[in-house]
């Protein structure tokens, strides 16, 4: 995988207003293939808003998005999914009443034709789910298990599996380790590392310096809705990044 000078995803001059509140102002961001970008910032710095703009959930008030060098306008999450831009939400966005497989394929279920009827292909869902979980080395009892029966870490793993089931090129993760037990954090971080190896660009929003310094290659800080600082991991330190979060350089 070439992480050449051409970024996979680039946001230029993103501005977002909510009424009179300026959530983001002229924010730039880019991520390359096989790279992990960490986005840090205090509560209300605009991290989540930026991610929602990238996933098509919010339309930016100004600014533009470029995907593989071409400008794209995202009207809905479906548009970003079609490009290969996937989001793992902080609240995980899984339907607990549905099995793992049906969650992974929710909204994009494989179907088979029975005469003029288009019916869900449950065998295929199961087959694809098992293959995909194997690929990511995620262990669950069965793809038929309901998500509400899983632990927090398993749910996070399912959410990540879901985001990568359709040839994702960029995966955006909002606080992927926030709700996890300590021993589950490691597994999720391993999962992120193996995603990077497959050439996926990963954006991780996190409060936890441990996460950032374990998986990221580059880190950028938002402060009060603007770009505050950015550096490659090798040329910065924990203390410096923590300072950025608090608005000190």
């Amino acid at each position, binding site marked *: 995988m070439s992480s050449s000078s051409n970024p996979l995803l680039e946001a230029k001059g993103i501005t977002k207003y909510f009424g009179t509140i300026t959530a983001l102002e002229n924010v730039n961001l880019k991520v390359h293939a096989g790279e992990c970008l960490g986005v840090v910032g205090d509560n209300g710095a605009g991290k989540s808003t930026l991610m929602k703009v990238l996933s098509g959930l919010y339309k930016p008030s100004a600014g533009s998005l470029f995907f593989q060098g071409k400008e794209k306008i995202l009207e*809905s999450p479906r548009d970003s999914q079609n490009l290969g831009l996937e989001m793992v939400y902080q*609240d*995980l966005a899984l339907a*607990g*009443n549905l099995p793992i497989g*049906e969650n992974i394929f929710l909204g*994009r279920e494989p179907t088979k034709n029975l005469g003029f009827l288009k019916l869900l292909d449950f065998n295929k869902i199961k087959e694809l789910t098992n293959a995909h979980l194997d690929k990511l080395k995620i262990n669950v009892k069965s793809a038929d298990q309901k998500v*509400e029966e899983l632990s927090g870490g398993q749910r996070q793993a399912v959410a990540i599996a879901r985001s990568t089931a359709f040839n994702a090129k960029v995966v955006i993760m909002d606080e992927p380790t926030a709700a996890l037990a300590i021993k589950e954090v490691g597994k999720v971080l391993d999962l992120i590392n193996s995603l990077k190896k497959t050439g996926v660009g990963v954006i991780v929003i996190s409060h936890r310096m441990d996460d950032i310094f374990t998986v990221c290659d580059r880190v950028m800080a938002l402060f009060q809705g603007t770009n505050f600082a950015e550096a490659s991991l090798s040329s910065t330190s924990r203390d410096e990044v923590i300072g950025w979060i608090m608005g000190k350089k």
Partner: protein
Amino acid sequence: MEDKDKKIESLHLKLIPYFEKYGILLLLVLMILVMHILQPDVFLSWRNVTNVFKQISWQSMLALGVFMVIVTAGIDLSVGSIMMLSLMILAVVAKAGAPWFVVALTPLIAGFLCGLINGMGITFLRMPHPFIMTLGTLYIFRGTGNLISGGTPISGFTDEVRYLGHGRIDLQWLGLEKSQYLPVSLVLIAIVYIIFWVFLNKSKTGKWIYAIGGNPNAARASGINVNKILIIVYSLCGFLSGIGALILAGRTDSGYPNAGLQSELDAIAACIIGGASFFGGRGTVLGVFAGVMIMGILRNGLNLMDVSSFWQQVLIGSIIVLAVYIDVLRRDIGTRK
């Protein structure tokens, strides 16, 4: 000894999913057995069994509609009024001398449109809860029904219009007696329930209806157009109420102002007894059918035994509470806490 306990325990755990799926049927079978023992000559007679199905025919349509709405974590209080309005429109159109197929189509279209109004109100007007929108339309639709009919009953429909509610399928070719016919409404229940079972369990839209009930944010994040699906669900619920109106027109041969009064509560009760969760995302079509049957058999059995209808109210209420309590207990064992 310990090993044996473990085996029994794991057997219990294996049985739980089946109990979850078919437990309500067990209750139904139990009720049928009890009634049969209490009324051995009458209860399982051809005449009485077909009677039960005829009695639950239109309620089963309302319950199925309300069930779909409940799966999305919504509620539809207006189904009784939708049925009454559709019935009144049918009656007025029939009195105006329209051909039978027009008369038979009108309640279906009217019901569908009423449901569409509910769905659009909930989504476009951003009502804080479907309870409010459908509480409003509960009054609006019944009022409208009385306005167009003048608040008086309108009677007398043709046999074609009455076919679904009143029609009989002769079984003499099977060597049965003339009195042993199959009510058309029973066949209709079976067809409609099978269609909706396939729709909810095997189609994408059906899966999305369950997903919305499980977590609307997950559905939205998956690119599912939640508002569109909700509008479809409420419209179908209205459509089923329209079918209910057509059946009722056949059964009673009359459009009357009190048609379907409080039947929305019966419909909700049937769903709850059948295992649907008010929080959405849970419940089966088979369960709803069992819920409708349980209420129908209870009423029928108590009538056969000449028990006062006041007792019927007390018993049905108790069964609702009991059914949900059993569900609470089951969930305690079944899921991780």
